[in-house]
């Protein structure tokens, strides 16, 4: 807890400046004060927490889950086969130069206003860090250690489960820590572009109504989802990689 004391002080300080600035400007549809946002959050608690939050959360959860399955599978395949690595790895890197956010409206065209258009955006945005970090983790396996395993007579299967997976885990978690906040962004963008519910959709609707505080309130919830998921990942990492504490 001690580690967070300075950043907490800074946060409160910035919020204070924001509050004073907002009161000075006094145009809440452009710059709502933090207290106004807080009050809005309370006012809209039922519709935000019970209706929009679960929808956005399911987009994030389903998107991340599919992304994990696809990303890990591809990373394992590339690790098993040099041909697959040479086929997919350059494409994977190149695909990152495509501005996915600009393409997102296409997915709305393809998948409509259903939950799937948002899930697709989330998958595409999180797939890269998960795949590349997992694959790099496999690649970081110590060659000498691999030969030691072979010299003991280890099978391909034993090599994979007892050496390659533990070697890849630290890098996998680094990727996951990047992917989790990005999944929140992906879901929000997806909802912005075309949705009938969700926190991103709600924020945008409030904007059309010039309700500044109403724009910020769901964004605060979005960022809380991100922080919460991040903490879950960090705890899981600490549990699985507890040898690193020494």
């Amino acid at each position, binding site marked *: 807890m001690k580690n967070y004391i300075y950043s907490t002080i800074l946060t409160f300080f910035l919020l204070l400046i924001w509050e004073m600035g907002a009161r000075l400007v006094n145009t809440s549809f452009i710059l709502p004060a933090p207290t106004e946002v807080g009050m809005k959050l309370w006012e809209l608690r039922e519709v935000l927490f019970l209706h929009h939050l679960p929808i956005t959360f399911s987009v994030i959860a389903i998107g991340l889950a599919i992304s994990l399955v696809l990303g890990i599978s591809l990373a394992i395949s590339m690790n098993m086969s040099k041909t697959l690595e040479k086929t997919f790895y350059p494409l994977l890197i190149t695909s990152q130069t495509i501005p996915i956010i600009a393409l997102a409206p296409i997915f709305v065209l393809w998948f409509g206003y259903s939950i799937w258009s948002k899930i697709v955006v989330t998958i595409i945005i999180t797939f890269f860090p998960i795949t590349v970090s997992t694959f790099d983790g496999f690649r970081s396996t110590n060659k000498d250690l691999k030969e030691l395993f072979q010299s003991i007579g280890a099978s391909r299967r034993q090599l994979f489960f*007892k050496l390659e997976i533990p070697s890849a885990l630290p890098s996998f978690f680094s990727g996951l820590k990047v992917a989790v906040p990005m999944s929140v962004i992906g879901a929000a963008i997806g909802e912005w572009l075309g949705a009938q519910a969700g926190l991103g959709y709600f924020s945008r609707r409030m904007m059309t109504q010039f309700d500044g505080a109403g724009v910020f309130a769901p964004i605060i919830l979005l960022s809380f989802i991100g922080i919460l998921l991040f903490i879950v990942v960090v705890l899981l990492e600490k549990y699985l990689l507890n040898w690193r504490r020494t």
Partner: protein
Amino acid sequence: MKSFPNNDGQALQFKNVNFDYKNDAGHIPILKDVSFSISEGEFVSIVGASGSGKTTIFRLIVGLEQQRSGSIYINGQQMENRLGKVGYMPQQDLLMPWRTIRQNATLPLEIQKQKSIDSNAVDRLLEEFGLEGYENKYPSELSGGMRQRVSFLRATLSGSNVLLLDEPFSALDAMTKLFMQEWLLEQWKKQSSTILFITHDISEALFLSDRIFIVTDTPFTTLEEVKVPLKRPRQQHHLDQKEVVELKNSLIERFRMRV
């Protein structure tokens, strides 16, 4: 002594072994028609400059490389697939940071899928190797000498009577190295294993071995052999005997020509 029938007392034999190293430039011969044999319970060192193919001999025995022609016998049996047949201790300790000391040491038992690991026997060995109280620590918490002992224990637990040690003490400080050498001889006597030991330290080879193989040129055909004129049990000061000092100096002279 762990004895194997029908091996005529030979733990390890090379018969006319040829080996080429393949790279982009083609085939580079490393071993040419090499033959030697090591008896059960012997301690033999291979001394040579780096890059002289000492490690290649190990990789052939372990089965990480295959000879072009000739045969390799382990305990009197000719083996094509030798992986898992001898205990191998590499140059770096190669302990896995995510496994505890005990889990690192018992890796060969796990790989060989031994259903019931005799934990009392493992406990005894851990104690024997001076690792008591460290079973559940991680490698990063141990000193260099201790880590080498874990690595040696892992090689021992492979269950083979033949142990290959590749410059195991080269990364240790001089003091630790001396103690580790004495300790190794003690263990060798207790486990009655056959040890093939690579080193570039002539004093170390003289102190430890019954015989020393000398590798000077690549490719090499014959392994020059030197018998160490020392009785056992040995102590460090035995190296100061006139005969041994002369032998050491002549060996050093031999290598000087090659540098």
